[in-house]
């Protein structure tokens, strides 16, 4: 009898593994993390991905270029309009189409609104990950206003499909400028609430400051882009490095911090919302008159060759690579999605922290799982 009991006793020095996900609410989707624990301390994380793999890159090979746009919506659904823009810019680069200023400026405004709503949802869900239900309601209250602007102009709320090769699907709605101005005025007035509720909260600060520190060297060698990389001091904003659309004619600051911990990754996103509002402010009154669409051939065929475009989504750098063999379908399409690359650093930065900190760290990298799996 004694011998059996001896076997059951767990050796406290031994590591054991648990599955976090694929149905865990704090992974924001179907991400499965196999976590090795020693007591409460995280020793190793092995992400298992592919639960929502749809083969978007392969699907692109059998459809035409205008049809690819609606698939990119479904990668990083919170930066849908920016993903659309990436493919459109690559196709326009290949065809050497001159895009009028009106289209460029509208695209930039829509992209920045997309960034704002994405960070609003980040703030909302991050507060909820940390145990604050209130944040979710405040975040969604403000996000609703951006979604209404999208709905009025593009017809979609999240899945906008607004850009198309050669311009935009529809012209902006007559109310667009008025509504955007109203929103900016409103949102400037309520952004202090975000700081009052969460940024200054003592429990939140205790749980995030100094947790999951990512050094600048590591951020560069792991290729961490977006607000997560900039919180470590990695100047990686494509809007600054390789301006596309109308970013070369606006003034804005690249939000940079040096600490690189969970709190500053969070703070970088709050500051980016302010910068995005500055960008919109500079453009919203200067939309020139003109067509919203450049006439393209009914069947778009790209000349043979390889085309590449980088854009800055709300989560980092999205690269589109198109190889064409001269047909109406691409020969190969490759997306370099920011979330997939950012996931790689999770094991590195959450080692030797508690399992509760893992939620904080994973939340601060702001994953969108369909973008990881594609």
């Amino acid at each position: 009898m004694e011998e059996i009991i001896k076997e059951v006793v767990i050796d406290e020095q031994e590591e054991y593994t648990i599955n976090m996900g694929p149905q865990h609410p704090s992974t924001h989707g179907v991400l499965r993390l196999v976590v090795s624990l020693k007591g409460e301390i995280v020793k190793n994380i092995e992400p298992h991905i592919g639960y929502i793999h749809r083969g978007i890159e392969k699907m692109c090979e059998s459809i035409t270029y205008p049809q690819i746009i609606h698939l990119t919506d479904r990668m990083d659904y919170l930066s849908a309009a920016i993903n659309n823009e990436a493919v459109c810019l690559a196709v326009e680069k290949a065809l050497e189409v001159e895009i009028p200023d009106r289209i460029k400026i509208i695209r930039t405004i829509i992209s920045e609104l997309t960034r704002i709503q994405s960070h609003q949802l980040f703030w909302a869900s991050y507060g909820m990950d940390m145990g604050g239900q209130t944040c979710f309601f405040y975040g969604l209250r403000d996000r609703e206003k951006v979604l209404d602007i999208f709905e009025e102009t593009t017809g979609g709320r999240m899945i906008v499909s607004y850009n198309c090769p050669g311009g935009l699907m529809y012209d902006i709605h007559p109310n667009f400028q008025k509504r955007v101005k109203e929103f900016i005025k409103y949102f400037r007035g309520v952004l202090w609430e975000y700081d009052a509720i969460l940024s200054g909260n003592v429990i939140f600060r205790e749980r995030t400051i100094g947790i999951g520190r990512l050094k600048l060297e590591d951020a560069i060698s792991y290729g961490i882009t977006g607000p997560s990389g900039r919180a470590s001091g990695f100047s990686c904003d494509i809007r600054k490095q390789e301006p596309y659309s109308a970013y070369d004619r606006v003034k804005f600051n690249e939000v940079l911090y040096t600490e690189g911990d969970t709190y500053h990754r969070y703070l970088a996103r709050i500051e980016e919302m302010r910068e995005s509002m500055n960008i919109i402010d500079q453009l919203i009154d200067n939309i020139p008159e003109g067509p919203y669409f450049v006439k393209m051939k009914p069947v778009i065929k790209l000349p043979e060759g390889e085309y590449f475009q980088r854009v800055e989504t709300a989560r980092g750098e999205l690269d589109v690579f198109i190889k064409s063999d001269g047909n109406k379908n691409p020969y190969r399409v490759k997306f370099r999605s920011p979330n997939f690359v950012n996931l790689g650093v999770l094991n590195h930065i959450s080692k030797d922290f508690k399992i509760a900190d893992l939620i904080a760290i994973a939340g601060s990298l702001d994953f969108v799982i369909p973008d990881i799996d594609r």
Partner: protein
Amino acid sequence: MNSIIQYFKEIIQGVGSLLKGMRVTNRYFFSPGKIVTQKYPNNRKDLVMFERFKGEVVMPHNESNEHKCTGCGICEINCPNGTIEVISKTIITEDGKKKRVIDKHIYRLGMCTFCALCVKTCPSNALAFSQEFEHAVFNRALLIKTLNKPGSQLMKGVE
């Protein structure tokens, strides 16, 4: 001694930060006019969707049951995932000519991704989006819809 003062100072600051957050919540609690929540199923009557809202694809018919669809099949070609199927038939018109008209314009709502390519590319503007958004049904077969109404004809003047 210093550490004790620091300890209590931190407690006071911490409680202060929590109260600051609570103040925001309380402000909304005592001013119900600022609440934006909609009581959805009860406000169905006065809930108006935006004009461009992509609810589902419809084929508008006029009073005399006429539509604009010529059955060219461009929407079918442009649809990325085979949502639309145009079944056409050949009829003989009054003056003895053969003419192709649509028999059925089948739209599978369950497969539609609302990319709007069919509506945008239609040469005769026969398709449009409705503002309907309550799509839930109990039987999957109900999601396969025939857009042209029974007995409908091609509008005069549309080629």
